[in-house]
Each structure stands twice: as C-alpha cells, then as structure tokens.
C-alpha cells in the first residue's frame, strides 16, 4: 500500500497557496488531503462539479465510477464535457479533464455501473464515498455497503430546483440514508425521481455539487460539518437551506441488520 506523505513540494505550496493560507487549513490540512482517498460514484452533474474541486484542491487519490456515456442532453449542466465528449464514457472523459487541471494527483477510472458484484472491489480502501448517482437502487446499495463496512458516505441529490445533502458517518447515533427515507426499495413509483424523468435546472447541480465538495473538504480536513447529524434541504427557488436534525431509526432494515450481525 501507499505510505503517507509528510511534506509538500515547492510547486505544491505554490499551487495550493490560497487554501493553505486559511487558518484552519494550513500545510497540515493540505497533507491530509494529499493522503486522502475519495471515490465519486456517478460522474454526471454533481460528480463532475465535486470532482473538479477535489482534484483542483489536491486530493491524493480520486476514483471515478460511471458506466454511462455522455449525451447531448447532459451538456447544459455537466460542464466537464463538451460536444466532442458525446458518445464517450463519462468517467474516462472526466479523468482527462481533471488531469489537464492537475496532474499531481492519482485518478483511477471505472467505466462500469456500480452493482452488488463489483461494489467491494470499487469502494474498499476509501476514506470517503461521494454518492452522486441518479437512481435510488444504486443509492440504497451504496448506503448499505457503507454502513456495513463502516466507511463514511456523503450523499447528494438534485431534482428540479431542489437539492439534498447528508453525511452518514455515525449511523448508530444519527442514522443512515435508509433510516431517513425507510422503505424506499419498496417504492417503485419513487424510482422515477431522476433528472431524466423530472427535469432539472442545470445551475442546481453547481449549487449542490459545490456544497457537497465544500463539506467533503471540511470532513477530510477533520473540520466540523453540520451534515454528520443533519440533512440539508437546498431550495434553489428561495435560496433557503434547511438543516434538519437526523436520528437513527430503530426500524431501519440496514442498521438493524448490522446490529444483528454483531450479536451473532
């Protein structure tokens, strides 16, 4: 495995100087980022925004997962892609864009859909999982895997003029994604709440993706984030951000399966 780095090079001090000068960031914080491993599931609207900031900020190892190809209807909001990208895999295209931005980091690409067969291989070893996917089945799968494997998950989603953000890192206290929305897997009608069926204001992926990147950086820098015990509801119509207090749900299937596996 990679050993952690404990010094920045001159060009890194130069490149990251504007963030290192922040009081609660500093060289120590920058080294934390350099020694971090983050996986981004979904390289569409949210994923490409988050990835650009994390790559730009110097996260040491990024992995990108997306089995979809770029479509013309993605271009209004997925700013890492241009017309030449149409028909090409999103994670491959995004990697090339990110390397042009910063070749000081390592990027791994997985041009496959995440599923129960490859999830162990693709998510293991990361310090943080960022859910930027576009469907409930994958969201539930990622949540379940992260809770079972005790890997922190920051989940973001958008639709229309609305966004949602939460961090699942202490599910026993503050609950997981399933604790919050319970029974989503049974709600096939709800499986339609995606950009392709409900529509989206392109700028909302910028708003919510930027919040996700901002709080992911705070988490990796070991700075407090309200998202570990709250869900943020972002309203693009009124500019209101509602922070609601989460709690573990004693009837959550995911959390209770962990408990029972610990007992046996």
């Amino acid at each position, binding site marked *: 495995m990679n050993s952690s780095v404990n010094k920045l090079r001159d060009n890194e001090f130069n490149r990251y100087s504007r963030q290192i000068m922040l009081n609660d960031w500093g060289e120590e914080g920058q080294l934390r980022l350099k020694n971090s491993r983050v996986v981004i599931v979904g390289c569409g609207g*949210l994923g490409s925004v988050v990835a650009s900031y994390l790559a730009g900020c110097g996260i040491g190892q990024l992995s990108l997962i997306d089995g979809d190809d770029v479509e013309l209807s993605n271009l209004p909001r997925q700013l890492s892609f241009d017309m030449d990208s149409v028909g090409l895999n999103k994670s491959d295209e995004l990697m090339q864009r990110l390397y042009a931005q910063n070749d000081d980091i390592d990027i791994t690409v997985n041009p496959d859909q995440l599923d129960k067969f490859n999830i162990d291989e693709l998510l293991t070893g990361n310090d943080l999982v960022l859910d930027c996917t576009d469907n409930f089945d994958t969201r539930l799968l990622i949540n379940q895997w992260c809770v079972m494997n005790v890997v922190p998950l920051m989940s973001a989603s958008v639709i229309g003029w*609305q966004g949602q953000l939460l961090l699942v890192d202490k599910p026993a206290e503050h609950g997981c994604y399933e604790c919050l929305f319970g029974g989503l897997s049974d709600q096939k009608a*709800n499986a339609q709440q995606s950009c392709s069926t409900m529509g989206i204001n392109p700028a909302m992926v910028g708003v919510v993706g930027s919040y996700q990147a901002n709080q992911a950086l705070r988490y990796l820098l070991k700075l407090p984030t309200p998202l570990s015990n709250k869900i943020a509801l972002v309203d693009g119509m009124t500019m209101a951000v509602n922070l609601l207090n989460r709690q573990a749900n004693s009837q959550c299937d995911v959390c209770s399966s962990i408990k029972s596996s610990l007992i046996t």
Partner: protein
Amino acid sequence: MNDKLPIKIMVNQAIEMNFIDHQTTVKTVLNELKIDNGSMAVAVNNDIIPKQDWEQCVLNDGDNVNVFGAIAGG
C-alpha cells in the same frame, strides 16, 4: 391556552393549517394533505420524526412541519 381555539401548524414554510383537535398528530397532517406516506420524511421544528412515531407525535400550536421526499437525480 384556550382549548377552544384551533392550533396553527405551518407546513414547509408555505401552508398554514388550523386544527380544532388538540390531539392532531404528524399522521393527521399527512392525511389531511393527502400525502402518500411511502418514502416521505417528516421533521417537526427541525427534528426528523421516524415514520413509526408519526401516529404518536402530537403537534402543538405554532409547530413548523417539514415534509419532503427523497430525490435521486445527480
């Protein structure tokens, strides 16, 4: 306060609802709004209330209720 006066509940900072019954619960509000309970989440005064507690969670005059569903777009 006076038992005869209706209690006032604000839903999603937009809908004002009045109830004569002082035992109004989260479940009553959802039924009144004809919201399918399915995959919705509810917060009262910014605290999320687990689904199994909706029927027991009695609302007070002036409570703010947030009702929202999961969204999947990315």
